[in-house]
């Protein structure tokens, strides 16, 4: 009788161990995959920017500094991106800089009715909005998944299996506050001119 109870307990514990271990591994892979998704979207954005700049260059001679800021931020982002997933902090900084440069550009474009009048810019704006959204949503999915993964590996009793599954807390994709907050201010200051 005693040995039967012991056996049952053993089976239950083993089943839990397997479940918890597999759960952690699955979350780990989901986190990695979510990170890859950000990368895909960032590459897409890097490819789109030269087209965008070419399309507005002619009509925006006197906004050269804004365009140059975009190109510079883009080149910087491409360079940092090549370092791979280890440099998540640097990558996110460079990408945030690129985001704010792009948003400044879009605010400027809004001010040129003759630019907006050509259908191309409308499509380009939609493309850019979509690209920015895709980057933001990929980042959001990564952060959600990584948070879930981090919580799981720190919570009792799963934390006892965390070592076994070689679970390490994943870095979150930080959104730099200054860059994000600066944009609406720019937007407001430009409004009266429109």
């Amino acid at each position: 009788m005693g040995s039967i109870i012991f056996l049952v307990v053993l089976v239950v514990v083993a089943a839990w161990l397997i479940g918890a271990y597999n759960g952690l591994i699955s979350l780990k892979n989901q986190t990695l995959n979510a990170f890859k998704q950000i990368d895909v979207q960032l590459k897409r954005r890097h490819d789109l920017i030269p087209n965008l700049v070419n399309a507005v260059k002619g009509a925006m001679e006197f906004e050269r500094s804004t365009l140059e800021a975009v190109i510079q931020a883009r080149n910087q982002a491409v360079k940092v991106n090549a370092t791979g997933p280890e440099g998540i902090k640097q990558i996110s900084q460079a990408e945030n800089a690129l985001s704010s440069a792009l948003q400044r550009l879009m605010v400027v474009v809004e001010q040129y009715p003759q630019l907006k009048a050509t259908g191309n810019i409308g499509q380009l704006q939609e493309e850019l909005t979509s690209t920015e959204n895709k980057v933001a949503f990929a980042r959001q999915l990564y952060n959600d998944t990584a948070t879930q993964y981090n919580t799981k590996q720190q919570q009792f009793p799963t934390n006892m299996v965390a070592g076994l599954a070689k679970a390490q807390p994943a870095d979150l994709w930080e959104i730099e506050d200054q860059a994000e907050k600066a944009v609406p201010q720019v937007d407001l200051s430009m409004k009266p001119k429109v």
Partner: protein
Amino acid sequence: MSDDTSLNLFQQQEANRRRTVLLVIGFVAFFAWLGFGGDYIYYLSTRDAPRTAYHHVFPWLGIALTVIALLTAWYAYATGPEKVLWSTGARPIVDPTDPQEKQLVNVVEEMAIASGVPRPRIWIVDDPDPTAFAAGTDPLHAHVAVTRGLLELCSREELQAVVGHELGHVKNLDVRLMTLLAALVGAVALMHDGATRVLRGGTNLGGGGGGGSRGGGKKGGAGPLLAVLLVVWILSWILAPIITQILALAVSRKREYLADAMSAQFTRNPLALASALQKIEGAVAPTAAIKRGAAHLCIADPLGRRLTAREGLFADALATHPPMAKRIAILRGMGYAQLKKEGGGVA
């Protein structure tokens, strides 16, 4: 929050897998009852017949109906999404040329990224009434369809919220259950029409058989049993389409709230869905393209039935969707909670 929703998601996926299996089992069992029940009644009625007359021993009706039900369920599962889309007259967007379609494709791609499911196939229904639905058997083979009216009516953010709601259904496998149900409802309606003719012949046979058993002297035994069986069996035949309809209603209501919440999680913008729902609610005209069989798939009741406006036992039994006002109120609550949190963070 994310841990909570993921738990819900996992439970919901499990529940949907289980319910899909139950639905198929129930469907097949119901037909088996119709078939074998008929066989048994026929057997009872011919048991006391003279030795030379026909004795119904082999349950060919039951076997035939069970096989038909199995084939139907398999066919519904395999072709359900196509059938549902076909019944609404949707056309796929392959190469978007018009800016509205291009925007829809972008929005769906964005929401696919946010929800972490593969990009579904995108369809447009050329109907001026705003609505949207999802179909498919799993996230890898999913379809999202919106009407032209929705594209005209909604802003980009609202469209995003509606698509987020549909991808919520895709992600938690609601689509599997709902698509299968839509296909089965259609199949039952079709079979019922055909089978009613066969049934008429069957009742005549049963009635004649009942007379025969009385003559056989087994008054207490087979007579009442036979009568009760016969009544239940005939009722089953008559009620089959109604039962499947009620099933379709029952599975779709609660999951709308969950899909709303998932949309809010994907877009982080519950107020956009609230205003989209309000606009959809405001367009009172029924969606001509959506038939009764696919109504439970849509984001809001496309048939314009006023039951959706109320709650209560009657509405609960007959409406495909929860009250719109309640859905909007819940989303607004989420939106204000979010604003408050963000406001607190900035200050």
